């Protein structure tokens, strides 16, 4: 057992951290966020040049063939910088899904394009309650809701219920007939989209078992999300520590007040527990035994979600009024942590799922 990263991994992390601190200043990020697209093709190309879009893609398809640990390192660094680009969607979840579901031809067509940054591919899975997606005669109808980065996709991978009740996975062009895409900002400054399809032409790309494979891919995404949360919490804690050392009230740095010291200790406990679970999630997220895998990932999401909530809220609280301003990175970390806690199922739902799976195990 060892918890050290190897040299390649450390180099990858360093490179990305440098990239983020060079290319992703607070002001630059704000400009990107406020742009029409809400993300930067230049940054995306920069990430491609660093090779990080390729890490989840096999070497056969122009990738680096790395795994969840390296993905975690990337997410960790991306988290600190609050990258607005669709990394999780297109460079983590989409390759994992394409590798699992599709034919070699499809993989040949799309994986190199993802790795090189030419194509952004996004899974649209969650249905609006009112209008779940269905397939009929090769066309899809229905409403996919709050699809992260759905608006910037060159290709959508859309799940839909087929007449026989199975779930199929379909390739859909964002420009296809009958597809209406409503792109909007989310709380964290990223983008999401609602996608409404009315007899939209689609190509089935799975060979059966799509639902299990989608869940497997989402679990890889969830592990990456947990790593992102750790990166943001690290940054949040560091900034808060620094603030407590600097901010003077009652004639001393407020970090001398024991109640605040103990709050910081509690925040660190949350962070370290979340870090541990992000390692465990990375180790297990590719597991083939779905209930065993899901049990660990639910545990990781519970730990991560509770940590996100606690660290985010208390970092703002300890910053006082300054914590409420849009001017500090802190408030943006707060919103991303809040969004993470709400994504991929909330804490309670994972707690209940963990209880169920533990009992069955």
């Amino acid at each position, binding site marked *: 057992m060892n918890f050290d990263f190897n040299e390649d991994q450390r180099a990858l992390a360093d490179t990305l951290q440098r990239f983020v601190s060079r290319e992703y200043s607070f002001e630059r990020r704000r400009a990107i966020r406020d742009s029409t697209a809400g993300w930067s093709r230049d940054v995306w190309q920069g990430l491609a040049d660093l090779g990080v879009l390729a890490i989840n893609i096999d070497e056969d398809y122009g990738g680096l063939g790395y795994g969840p640990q390296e993905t975690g390192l990337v997410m960790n660094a991306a988290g600190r910088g609050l990258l607005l680009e669709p990394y999780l969607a297109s460079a983590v979840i989409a390759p994992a899904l394409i590798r699992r579901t599709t034919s070699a031809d499809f993989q040949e067509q799309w994986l190199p394009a993802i790795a090189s940054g030419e194509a952004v591919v996004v899974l649209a899975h*969650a249905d*609006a309650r009112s209008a779940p997606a269905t397939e009929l005669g090769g066309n899809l109808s229905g409403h996919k*809701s*709050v699809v992260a980065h759905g608006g910037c996709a060159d290709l959508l991978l859309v799940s839909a219920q087929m007449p026989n009740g199975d779930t199929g996975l379909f390739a859909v062009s964002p420009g296809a007939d009958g597809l209406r895409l*409503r792109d*909007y*900002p*989310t*709380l*964290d400054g990223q983008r*999401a989209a*609602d996608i409404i399809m009315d007899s939209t032409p689609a190509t089935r790309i799975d060979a059966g078992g799509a639902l299990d494979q989608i869940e497997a891919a989402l679990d890889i995404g969830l592990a990456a999300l947990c790593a992102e949360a750790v990166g943001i919490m690290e940054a949040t804690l560091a900034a808060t520590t620094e603030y407590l050392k600097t901010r*003077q*009230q*009652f*004639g001393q740095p*407020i970090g001398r*007040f024991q*109640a*605040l010291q103990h709050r910081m200790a509690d925040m660190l406990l949350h962070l370290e527990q979340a870090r541990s679970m992000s390692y465990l999630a990375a180790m297990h997220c590719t597991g083939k035994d779905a209930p065993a895998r899901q049990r660990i990932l639910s545990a990781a999401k519970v730990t991560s979600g509770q940590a996100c909530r606690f660290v985010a*809220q208390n970092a*703002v*609280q300890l910053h*006082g*009024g300054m*914590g*409420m*301003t*849009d*001017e500090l990175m802190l*408030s*943006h970390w*707060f*919103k991303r942590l*809040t*969004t993470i806690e*709400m*994504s991929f199922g*909330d804490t*309670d*739902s994972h*707690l*209940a799922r963990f209880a169920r799976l533990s009992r069955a195990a």
Partner: protein
Amino acid sequence: MDLNFSPEETAFREQVRRFVSENLPAGIRHKVLNGIHLEREEHVQWQRILHARGWGGVGWPREFGGPGWSPTELYIFEEESARGGAPRLISFGLKMIAPVLMAFGTPAQQQRFLPKIMAADEWWCQGYSEPGAGSDLASLKTRAMREGDCYIVNGQKTWTTLGQYADWIFCLVRTDPEAKKQSGISFLLIDMKSPGVTVRPIITLDGAHEVNEVWLEDVRVPVENRIGEENKGWTYAKFLLGHERTNIAGIGIAKRELARLKRIAEDEGRLDEPLFAARLAQVEIDLMALEITNLRVLSAEGAKKAPGPEASILKIKGSEIQQAIAELMMQAVGAYALPYRQTDVGPDYAANLGAGYCNLRKLSIFGGSNEIQKNIISQMIMGL
């Protein structure tokens, strides 16, 4: 001990309820009940409707034109106003500077300012906090130098809520830089139109413009706009802080928001989830208890008006409950809480929940952070 409202109080509640239901404009009501930001004019409109009814001076004694309500009546008024979707009264004029004027102002000051507050002809804001003086308010640095009949004021105030709407600001300023902390402070009323006053917006994490920086550069303030004695401002400031804390528990608003949470949870089918139902039950129980605690404090307060350190209990629990409700509303709608102020994504009620959650983080920070409140409780109540 009798925990029932008296028949008179119940009749009064009925009266307020009917008044709000009959007189509150539907547009304002809709905004309040859905967590949508109100414009200045909407606040003013409601205040004028109250004023026309003779209820403009909420919380004021009769001698100054107020309705002369007891603390319990005031509580009932606030609760029914919140319940009916009326805006929260803008407290800076009505509840903060007005009691100071009544207690320490000259008759001239009272006549000049109080009627315009009641009639919503002038909007007030608060100039207490500074960048270097938050929890440690007494370390404030804004300087006022006497020059003939005027003070020349220089400094910077911050977290000035709705300062962008204000006609007047009441400020704590340092008039004796040699004196120690609390003792060299004076309390000035400053016309926001004075040359040298600049208001700069602070955007908060929910993306809203609710607070401001107020820069004061060589602002001339007539001596007659000083409250009370020079260098005694801290006394008036503390008096005001006590009044700021009436209705600090926010029971009425919390009850209204809890009802909204329940409707949302019902719509979203969340009440069938035992963990969600338990969280909802917990906050409902906490609020039920706080309502009684609040009434106990009101009852003990009696004619005194300004609550003691017990108000810190109300502030802490009240803010925690409102924050918990905001969290649960967000949780109830799941992913639909994420679209940022999008009225046409997901159910109508989801549009502002994420931003609302962010905004309400202020409750445990502003008005004396909850940490400061715990200092007060442990030191003033428990003697530690």
